[in-house]
């Protein structure tokens, strides 16, 4: 019996109405699970969150308390093959592992600082005692390098939350310190979700040819990431046709991101305020996730390889110059010859758009700076997708078809755009 069958079984057993998945097991049983050194699995009373390109933080139960350990430290991070940096994160990654717990849990989070400067962790959006809020200088003194501090509080809510430093915050966040904090409701509400994904949005100033984020940048960022990865290195979100899928999106970047999904009208069902009552849900295709906000988008999966991306076009690009001459429409045929005499290897580009440029790069005609990804790319089954940054795919397959993250949707005959010799003559335009 797989998890979905179990959930379906539970749902049918209880009939229509609220499903208490958390209630299916007592805290004692959870305790035993944790003591057995188990990390969240199918046997949990909730659909565990999947953090694409990331992981969920393991925990253990001690005397009825869920114990976690976060380690703030420098990490080696790769945005996509071709760009590596020295970032800061938690437990070896940026974003840090996703913390997952259940409303009503009592959590104890050990925080060890392995940075060279003090830090704290602020539990963004959690309702907790003032002294646990993790604001350096205000609720505590900052955690010095080498120290371990403990935050412990009861989870009095559910929803999609985040954690990040509140000590030299501007720098530490620019360096990649952040994570998701998901709290499942003790008593779930219908419809249950079959797949639950967490995406944390961020922006990075990693200038071409450099290896460390530049915290001084305020506006002109180079890389736009989901879980600190750029397309095409962002793992696709997988689902089966008809499954209820939730995508939880948090934003700890310095821009607002209108997140747009193809193929469905999703319901905006929640935020850091938890899963909203049904009557507050909205049908949307684009939902603005503001800085410091979270949003839950739910939909019933439809077969296909559907894009999910920020709709700020520059946020689906990798590093590019934002103060360069506009060469659209510029005829360089003559002058390029002259320039090549001065600068061998010079290639004119941009007269008819930037696709041509992308083609040269894809064909290896043009070498770029070290540690720098091309502005756009990503090969699909029909050519280059010419995307980068905050762009990924939701790959939905019918039952029986292989769920392969690397595979492409096979388009049923008669359902794909096709080429004709020309438009009908009497077609108005």
């Amino acid at each position, binding site marked *: 019996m797989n998890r979905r069958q179990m959930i379906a079984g539970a749902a049918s057993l209880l009939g229509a109405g609220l499903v208490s998945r958390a209630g299916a097991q007592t805290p004692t049983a959870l305790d035993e699970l944790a003591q057995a050194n188990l990390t969240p699995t199918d046997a949990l009373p909730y659909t565990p969150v999947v953090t694409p390109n990331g992981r969920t933080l393991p925990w253990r139960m001690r005397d009825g308390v869920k114990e976690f350990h976060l380690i703030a430290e420098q990490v080696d991070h790769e945005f996509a093959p071709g760009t590596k940096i020295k970032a800061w994160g938690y437990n070896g990654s940026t974003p840090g592992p996703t913390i997952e717990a259940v409303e009503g849990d009592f959590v104890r989070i050990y925080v060890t600082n392995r940075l060279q400067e003090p830090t704290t962790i602020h539990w963004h959006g959690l309702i907790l005692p003032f002294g646990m809020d993790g604001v350096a200088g205000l609720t505590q003194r900052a955690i010095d390098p080498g120290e371990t501090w403990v935050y412990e509080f009861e989870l009095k809510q559910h929803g999609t939350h985040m954690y990040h430093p509140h000590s030299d915050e501007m720098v530490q966040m620019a360096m990649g310190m952040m994570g998701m904090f998901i709290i499942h409701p003790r008593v779930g509400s219908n419809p249950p979700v079959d797949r639950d994904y967490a995406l944390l949005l961020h922006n990075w100033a990693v200038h*071409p*040819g450099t290896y460390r984020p530049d915290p001084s940048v305020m506006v002109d960022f180079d890389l736009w990431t989901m879980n600190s990865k750029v397309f095409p290195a962002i793992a696709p979100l997988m689902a089966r046709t008809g499954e209820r899928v939730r995508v939880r999106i948090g934003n700890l970047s310095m821009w607002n991101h209108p997140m747009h999904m193809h193929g469905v009208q999703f319901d905006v069902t929640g935020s850091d305020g938890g899963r909203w009552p049904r009557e507050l849900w909205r049908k949307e295709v684009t939902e603005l996730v503001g800085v410091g906000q979270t949003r839950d988008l739910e939909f019933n999966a439809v077969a296909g390889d559907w894009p999910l991306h920020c709709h700020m076009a520059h946020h689906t690009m990798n*590093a*590019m*110059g934002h103060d*360069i*001459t*506009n*060469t*659209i*429409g*510029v*005829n*360089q045929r*003559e*002058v390029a010859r*002259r*320039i090549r*005499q*001065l*600068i061998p*290897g*010079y*290639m004119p*580009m*941009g007269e008819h758009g*930037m696709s041509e*440029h992308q083609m*040269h*790069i894809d064909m290896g005609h*043009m*070498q*770029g*700076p070290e540690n*720098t990804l*091309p*502005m756009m790319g990503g090969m699909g089954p029909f050519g280059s997708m010419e995307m980068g940054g905050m762009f990924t795919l939701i790959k939905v397959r019918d039952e029986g078809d292989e769920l392969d993250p690397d595979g492409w949707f096979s388009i049923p005959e008669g359902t794909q755009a096709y080429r004709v010799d020309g438009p009908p003559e009497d077609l108005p335009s």
Partner: protein
Amino acid sequence: MINSQSRGYALLLILFLAGCSSLEPPSDAALMPPLAAIVAGINADPEFIVSSEQATEPASNDGANVGLEWPDPRQAQRWAIANAPRVSHMIAELQSSQAEIWNASMLENPGFELSFLEPEAGSGRWQLEAGLELGLADWLTRSVRLDRARAVHLVNQLDVLDDLTEYLHQIRQAWLNAVASRQQMAVHDGLYQTAFAMLEFAQQVQAAGNLNELDFLVYETEHARQQRALQAARLEADIAISELQSLLGLMPDELPVLPDSLPKVPESDKQSLMDVGQAMNLAEQFQPRMRLLDEALNQQLAAERLIKRQVGLLDGAVKVGVERETNSERRLALGGSIELPLFDRGHAHLADIKAQRSSLQAQIEQARTETRHTISQALMSKRSATELARQVDAEDLPRHQRMLELALQEYNFMLRDTFSLLTLREQVFDAQLEYVAHTLAYWKAESLLLKLTGIDTDDVAETGDFQ
């Protein structure tokens, strides 16, 4: 009475006097080594002595056709020695000096006197008197006079050598300026081409509607600026060539073939390692100016000796005469005269010489100090220019080239635009201009050292035949 015996004495005397008047210049008139080699080199192969008239003959003004290929300054210097009017002038001066020493070796010509006296009362033969008079001082001061003439000749040669050294130095400098200005002009041409490419690109961008007039004018201005700079560089190159031609006595259409660039600054340069003391040693041995002053002092000493000898000698003359009386009787007459050093004992001359000697001693001191300072400055300039040229060549230029390479990579990834690439290209040219300036400074300092140590002329002479 004059008999056949006395006739014989007279003949011998005449022969002796004739002997004193040698027809060949004395060996004292020989030239000092570099000059001798140069004069010999020119005479050795007169074919090489092409007058500028001959050189202009070909209609083409291609230097190769008139044999004016000067890949280094030495060729230009050698050509000048064989052909330049200024060298002919110097050689004529030398010949004049040689003639002078020849002159000094000769004795004052004896005086011959013949007189007739009408016989008394118209009877008998006319009375006839013949006499020879010979000054004594010439005989007695000949060796001192020769000493002095030799000293004068040495001074004259050194004077010519000094002129020649200065002239060769000017040729070297002019050659360096001509080549450097050509090299700089080529770099300015590159800068201009870059600005032109920028302007052309800007025109296309503007034509596409993507560049406003204000931004466009920036590139137009840069283009105009580089155009003016190129024009100025061209003028400078033309003037530098003209100066070289003028020095060498060439007509404007006789264009020498020069290399496109100055020789690289040598990696290890013994002269740069030389200290001021070593250079001063060379200068004291070889620098014509310092030697000239030393010899001028010697000359004054010789002059002083001569005057003392002359005064001490009581200048006089001997006379030999034959007289035929009216009665045809012949008689021999002998006589002498002496100058009495009552009024002029040479003391005014001596005072003059003494004053000149002090003046020369002061000049020698001054020349030595100046030479030392100038050598020290030239060595400093050379060392500095060596380091700077090396830095620009080995570090800056490759760095600028690397920057351009990296910028092209950024351009490839749409991180940078064409204008910024061309701006970086300009910087490569700017570094090249700087490199030429340092290289020129090096070779000019080198040229100055060659002049100050006096070894340039020796080196030129060593190369033998000139063309």
